[in-house]
């Protein structure tokens, strides 16, 4: 049951689950996401413990501009949808459509990152630096960890697209597309919590 045996045959409906190797990878990645939940959970816990300790720096209420963050949220949510379209296209063995949706996903991810960098630069100008207060340190660590995950995802999906171009859609490349999509959804879910806990609660329950 090597991946190789299937690569030359015709593609099954769910090519990402065709080999034991691929099923192992999908299961292993779910477990990894379980670990990531604890990782972000701990970061959230630290942030919640420290979010009122603003010292001389600005408070969350003074700092956050909800319209822009809402825009970023919409962009990231949409990118999750486009990655679903990519996996749908993969199930229909439509390589061209799949790659197109993956590229759209990447572009949306980059747009989100651009907004986040702009936001961070703004905050630093307003005196909200990494070392300003316990609030600022935990804010940048939590949101920054998420941003780094988005950046990693963008590079990863780009590499997957490259491999699909080179090797075609096979039982080897299909799980890579599927797993990168799982990762992307996870990042999206984490952001939903960040938007709620960091931004909305910072503005409303501050």
């Amino acid at each position, binding site marked *: 049951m090597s991946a190789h045996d299937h690569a030359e045959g015709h593609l099954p409906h769910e090519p990402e689950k065709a080999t034991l190797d691929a099923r192992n990878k999908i299961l292993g990645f779910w477990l990894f996401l379980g670990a990531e939940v604890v990782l972000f959970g701990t970061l959230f816990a630290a942030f919640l413990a420290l979010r009122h300790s603003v010292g001389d720096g600005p408070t969350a209420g003074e700092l956050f501009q909800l319209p822009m963050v809402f825009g970023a949220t919409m962009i990231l949510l949409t990118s999750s949808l486009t990655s679903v379209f990519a996996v749908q296209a993969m199930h229909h063995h439509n390589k061209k459509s799949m790659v197109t949706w993956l590229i759209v996903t990447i572009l949306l991810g980059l747009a989100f990152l651009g907004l986040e960098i702009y936001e961070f630069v703004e905050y630093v100008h307003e005196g909200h630096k990494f*070392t300003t207060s316990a609030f600022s340190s935990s804010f940048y660590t939590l949101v920054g960890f998420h941003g780094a995950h988005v950046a990693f995802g963008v590079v990863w999906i780009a590499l997957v697209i490259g491999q699909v171009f080179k090797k075609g859609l096979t039982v080897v490349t299909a799980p890579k597309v599927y797993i990168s999509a799982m990762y992307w959804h996870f990042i999206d879910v984490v952001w939903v919590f960040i938007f709620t806990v960091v931004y909305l609660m910072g503005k409303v329950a501050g």
Partner: protein
Amino acid sequence: MAAAHAHGHKVKRYSGLMDWLTTVDHKKIGILYFIAGFFFFLIGGLEAIIIRIQLLKPMNDVVAGDTFNELITMHGTTMIFLAAMPLLFALMNAVIPLQIGARDVAFPFLNSLGFWTFFFGGVLLNLSWFAGAVPDAGWTSYVPLAGSIYSSGHGVDYYVLGLQIAGIGTLLGGINFMATIINMRAPGLTFMRLPMFTWAIFITSALIVFAFPALTVGLVALMFDRLFNANFFDVANGGNGVLWEHIFWVFGHPEVYILILPAFGIISEVVSTFSRKRLFGYSSMVFATVLIAFLGFMVWAHHMFTTGLGPVANGLFSIATMLIAVPTGVKIFNWLFTLWGGSIRFTTANLFAIGFIPTFVMGGVTGVMLASAPADYQYHDTYFVVAHFHYVIVGGLILGIFAGLHYWWPKMFGRILNETLGKITFWTFFIGFHLTFFVQHFLGLLGMPRRVYTYLGGQGYDDMNFISTIGAILMGIGTIVFLINIFVTWAKPRNASNDPWEDGRSLEWTIPSPPPEYNFKQTPLVRGYDAWWKEKMEGKTAMTPAEPVGSIHMPSPSILPFIMSVGLFIAGFGFMYDQLIVAGVGLAITLGCMVVRSLVDDHGFHIEPEEQDKGVQA
């Protein structure tokens, strides 16, 4: 060097040192974990003996106070992260795929990566001795002591980065073994037929997956505080020191179950084999294990009773902690009932297992005493606590590991360890252990505080400290005898049979010792719990195969895990000494290897039936 053809793919196979650096074979990785783990065990043991010699008599001055702080910090950290866990990983790697009838783990490449990150993390941490900046804030590294004000040197940085790198390896191992046990079991091997050791490792792996990321975040926060002036734990800037305690123990308490559950698994296997009886209450054992793991996440604040969380929190955490005694008691009674009426053989492995039972009960009893928050105010930070956790970790885990090593040694290396030397190891270590730690209960009750480098005479501490030191030296002798046993056995011919104890019950005893690199020529069909015992009782001499003889697919060896770990090692030094370019280069090496791994497909290779007959030895 066996030539390998995989439908036209040639795979380069290495020999000698390169074979060990590139191997993805779980059996070889198990041996690597054993060698590295035992090496760190010797270092940690040496540190312990120096600590005990310093405490031999009042006002002793073998080491200075600050060196003593470094010794206790490094002893604890080394023993937990670099000795106990790798020795468990050694047994996991050596045994689990064999017990479930698999040809390898789910992710052989990650398995190798896990070993090398652990190894380089451990080396980084221990290089602190040579850098002259040794961690000295205790293995729990509490802030503000571990913060940049009170620990201004690089000592705690070595702790933070060494553990961070080693922790990656542990997390990968946890994910890997969970996926392996879920997906790679032989046909017929349902969950409720799994050997108890496999169950224990399955649950342990789940604990690793859900506990280690908390440590990762704690270490990141401490690193940011120390290296980039963040304010997580800096009270002057709004940080919170108790936050570190919470994060550390949210990881740290499940960690002690990560250590002890595999020992429970080992004891179950050994006791059952050498009583020639089915494990008593198998399903209750499984559920007790699951329950202990679940409760293990609910009790972290019992390490913080004196922090001032208030009576409600202390009360809840007290009760939750005491509840753990119930499933643990179930296990103790099950082992006793397994022994009851069995035809018991007192092999070295079984001596360690039987020695484990009363020793661990004593550790459990003091555990329940400590769980009572008001009483804990008296025991806190005294030698009573030191006695308690050494009873559960050394008396539990280390006795379990010795039992496991003696039991599975023939499967790992093809030779049975010398039984006479083994028994000398057991008696010296066992007596030495009780001599060292039993009196420490009373030292604690008399009020001797832990972590002090010396004490004044005439307080009633002198004799008991003297006895304790003699015991520690006896444990050291026991360990040396074990080392001698390894070399004596090494010189003997490799002649262990498939089932060297003759009473083997699970699948690892159906294949040669050591197994060929593909483990099972034909995947076995499992027809019940104690699969091999069941076949033997029906007069069979081999398992029923579940597949015809055929070409076996194997993963290719790779040097990438080694290089990736070197990259992290370099990055660790870069961060520590503020050379961000060096750190960048290190991370680039690691990420570059990840890209290479992703882009280049590993087709592996096949071992054809005619090669299998020649016997490709691992």
